[in-house]
């Protein structure tokens, strides 16, 4: 390994700083707007001249944001849980078992991954209205599971292919029951992949806007990305900018936490599923 010269170090540091600025400026701008006081929100300055938490107080005092937050969390968690369970089953079969229709399933989930989601909006709007699923949690959870499944299946089968399954046999030879072999040997090996997939799927559900705005009509099931449109100030003439930004910051917190704590896993998950083929 060559010695890292000071010149190289400086050059890479400058490049790193450019990347960091590129990635963070829009986020910091939202943060800045959310902390500006009502009087200074229109001053165009990147750093608040007058700090205030009023916008946060405002959004937590109205039901609009709180209900949307509950919808977002509930819908995303349920969809993630179901998609990961179904995806794990399918990915296990794809990675380990030989059965007819495997190629068809892989191809089909690839199709779903590339599917133009807007093509589903019209028929789903109509179907969900007739099934009274329109503007309900299941009405959003269903399409979320569907579009999360290809992601889950790819990521998980890539992870599962890496697991040394022979260990299971070895454990059984050493006298472990199948249940023990699974619990003590396979589950701990598979858990990181499943967990990573869950994060990716959650981010996907948390992010959705098209279905959220098309298949909901009221605060009953409207998620935060869709609800931001409907924010108004306390009075008709009040500018909702600060409140939108405060709400935006709140729903960005989980993403930032995931990224901070699980960077390695997320990178591994995104890259393994995509290029193994």
């Amino acid at each position, binding site marked *: 390994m060559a010695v890292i010269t000071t010149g190289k170090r400086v050059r890479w540091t400058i490049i790193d700083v450019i990347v960091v600025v590129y990635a963070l400026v829009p986020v910091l701008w939202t943060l800045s707007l959310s902390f500006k006081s009502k009087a200074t929100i229109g*001053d165009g300055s990147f750093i608040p001249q007058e700090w205030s938490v009023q916008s946060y107080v405002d959004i937590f005092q109205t039901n609009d944001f709180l209900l949307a937050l509950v919808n977002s969390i509930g819908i995303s968690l349920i969809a993630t849980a179901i998609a990961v369970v179904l995806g794990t089953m399918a990915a296990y079969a794809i990675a380990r078992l*030989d059965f007819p229709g495997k190629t068809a399933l892989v191809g089909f989930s690839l199709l779903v991954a590339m599917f133009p989601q807007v*093509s589903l909006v*019209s028929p789903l*709007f109509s179907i969900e209205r007739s099934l009274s699923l329109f503007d309900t949690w299941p009405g959003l959870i269903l399409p979320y599971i569907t579009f999360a*499944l290809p992601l889950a299946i790819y990521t998980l089968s890539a992870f599962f292919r890496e697991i040394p399954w022979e260990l299971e046999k070895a454990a059984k030879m050493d006298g472990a029951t199948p249940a023990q072999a699974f619990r003590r040997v396979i589950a701990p090996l598979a858990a990181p992949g499943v967990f990573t997939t869950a994060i990716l799927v959650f981010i996907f559900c948390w992010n959705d*806007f098209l279905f959220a705005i098309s298949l909901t009509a009221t605060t009953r099931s409207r998620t935060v990305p869709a609800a931001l449109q409907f924010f108004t100030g306390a009075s008709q003439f009040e500018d909702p900018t600060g409140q939108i930004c405060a709400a*935006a910051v709140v729903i960005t917190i989980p993403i930032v936490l995931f990224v901070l704590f699980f960077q390695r896993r*997320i990178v591994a998950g995104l890259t393994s*599923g995509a290029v193994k083929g």
Partner: protein
Amino acid sequence: MSQTTEAARPATTHRAKPVLSEGKRAERRLGLLLCAPAAIVMLAVTGWPIIYSVWLSLQRYDLRFPDKQEFVGLANYGTVLSNGYWWTAFGTTALITVVSVAIELVLGMALALIMHRTLVGRGLVRTVSLIPYGIVTVVAAFSWKFAWTPDTGYLAKLVGPDTAVLTEKLPALSAIILAEVWKTTPFMALLLMAGLALVPDDLLKAASMDGAGPWQRFTKVMLPVMKPAILVALLFRTLDAFRIFDNIFILTGGSQGTGSVSMQTYDNLIRGLNLGIGSTMSVLIFIAVAIVAFVFIKVFGTAAPGSDPGRR
């Protein structure tokens, strides 16, 4: 360690041979059983609606006048395809797709190289790059919108007090492309980085010994090895960019001819409540995306991700 497992494999398959047919059947049944729920959900939520959508597109069906629903054949397709707005939206979508994917490819490659090779703060760069990927598109779009809003925004301040960027067609399109590029470059970079990891270091060293400069090493050694990864990334991003909706919805609402085909469909369906026309557009977008995917796979020979192990 790996040697013992390699050695163990043929032995076990050999021993399993006598019960192959029965075990094989059980394996098939288990495989189908495990895949069935996922396959059924995906089929039910995509397959059936697409068929239903084709049927709807052949009807005159306006929810404001539900009594007037009738079969009109291909009339809706005639209406949409002879409509200037549709073609404007189509052109806009194609323009945004091509320009943003091109920029993303260049920036994404640069970012991938940085993430792959940086000697300082690799973890930091990777962590920070994931933020645009993970952030809710609508949240980022609002950030850009407020940044371009006259008086309020820092970017609006930079371009001068008299220009309202989001109210003119070309500046607004540029703002949309910027927002799109910002959000999706890291994803592109990650896909490319996976390709970079496949480039053998020895090959680069050998090229370097033979006198290849950095640019030659990049174009002659790295790019050919990375080709499959690049094509997969391009295919994914192209199809994804083609369905652009969130950024346009927030930034301009589709005004000044900045609406995409997804925006048009949404407008006809939810704002216009015209299920017939909305479904016609849905079907047309589906066909357009299918053509793009087909061209990519046939012409460039993109290997479908995950198809490799499944291909027998």
